[in-house]
């Protein structure tokens, strides 16, 4: 549907696993389907334990890896029929490890200018300055190298970069998993700001249900490559027959 931000239909993904003398298929995503952002922007979180396929799902939606079966559509159009530049302004991704998210050999400026290949320089700088202001960053960072920043600052820079293309959806894959509490709060605040001020939808991946609950109404719970619950906190709590959800909710109610 042309008004729906994201449609994921029956996604199946297998990885090849090398064993001693053979390669075995490993089913990482086992028929994932959901929609998000019908007629409006919509932020939601994806919760699941380690290895349940969250990153795999994120990378597929971001167009970074191939999949075996199913389809992913942005505004009714299959991601495979988007031109790369056009797709870049559809979705961007923020990764778990801020230390690996910026090329250590490039100044921040060069990393940022990649978003404006073929565009006017002064126009690019205008958007960059604007974005820095909105993410609470100083223009002085542009002439520095990644190693001059802490993990939290790097994550903030990576988030700023994800905004440059003015995407409709930002996929944030456990963006605070490797940060201290202070930086976690800072990053959460930035994401709330982005949602309010830019009207961008955010898909937040986490394994922490309390973060998910604070972040958005809607939560999609994954377990073993499948979606086991999708809805608000009460909907999730109603699906306690699933062992993983039971553990999540019990931990929450402690």
């Amino acid at each position: 549907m042309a008004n729906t931000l994201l449609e994921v239909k029956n996604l199946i993904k297998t990885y090849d696993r090398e064993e001693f003398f053979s390669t075995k298929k490993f089913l990482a995503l086992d028929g994932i389907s959901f929609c998000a952002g019908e007629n409006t922007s919509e932020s939601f979180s994806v919760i699941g334990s380690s290895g349940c396929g969250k990153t795999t799902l994120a990378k597929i939606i971001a167009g970074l890896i191939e999949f075996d079966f199913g389809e992913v559509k942005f505004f009714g159009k299959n991601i495979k029929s988007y031109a790369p530049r056009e797709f870049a302004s559809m979705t961007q991704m923020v990764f778990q490890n801020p230390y690996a998210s910026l090329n250590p050999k490039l100044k921040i400026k060069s990393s940022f200018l990649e978003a404006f290949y073929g565009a006017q320089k002064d126009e690019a700088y205008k958007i960059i300055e604007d974005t820095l202001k909105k993410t609470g960053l100083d223009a002085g960072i542009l002439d520095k190298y990644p190693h001059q920043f802490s993990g939290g600052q790097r994550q903030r820079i990576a988030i700023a970069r994800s905004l440059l293309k003015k995407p409709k959806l930002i996929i944030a894959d456990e963006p605070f998993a490797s940060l201290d509490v202070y930086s976690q709060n800072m990053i959460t605040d930035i994401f709330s700001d982005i949602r309010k001020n830019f009207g961008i939808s955010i898909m937040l991946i986490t394994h922490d249900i309390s973060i998910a609950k604070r972040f958005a109404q809607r939560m999609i719970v994954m377990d073993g490559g499948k979606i086991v619950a999708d809805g608000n906190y009460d909907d999730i709590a109603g699906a306690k027959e699933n062992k993983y959800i039971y553990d999540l909710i019990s931990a929450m109610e402690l």
Partner: protein
Amino acid sequence: MKKILKNKAALIALIFILFVTAAAVFAPLITPYDPSEQNLPQRLSAPCAQYFLGTDDLGRDVFSRMVFGARISVSVGVFAVLLTVLIGVTIGMTAGYFGGTADAVLMRFTDIVLCFPTFFLILLVIAFFEPGIYSVMIVIGLTSWTGLARIVRAEVLSLREREFVLASRMLAVSRLRLLFVHILPNVISPIIVYAAIGMGGAILTESGLSFLGLGVQPPAPSWGQILMQGKDYIYSAWWLSVFPGIAILLTVLSFNLTGDFLRDILDPKDAN
């Protein structure tokens, strides 16, 4: 810089390399005699005030010949290593980045070249071309890139999944830019280390080939070749084999030490 001063062995090695390189570059200015000037009455003269590393069986000054030999060693090293890096990096990057069939084909090819003995290839080349400095450079270059290709491939394989590469892909950056701006600069340290150690290896192979008469041809002076002439006089004129032997040993050792040292300082763990 501080680290260089701390590591005395590496410092000495670096100074020695600079010294050999300077000798190679300024050879005509340093040498007291023309390297092929013969002084038959003074043949096989032991080190003395006039010829301080002695003379060979044709009365040529060993010191002058060794300084000019440094030229050959250094240029063989430099060109062979350039060729090694060019081939190794191209094949390693292509295999690592594109994966799949390209990877399988290129790596099997690498395995085949790896099994190919340098000395057999030089015999083959000599059978078709003239033996000499160029054949030596090319043969060394053509046979010593395999290790580098494997290292580069492994690095590229992990770099292409690294978050900053994925982030750039999401900005619709071109493949060329991904390869040359994001991936290549991040594999430069293992390449430099390999090149330093490869210099030592190339110089050693050149000496070996020339010693066997398969490399640089007389009257051009090369360390391996002076060594070969010296073997007939090893009991009567020790200086003919000892000095070039020491020169080869120290130069190869210096390049290896420098390579190890570079590996230590370029290690990503220290970079942060």
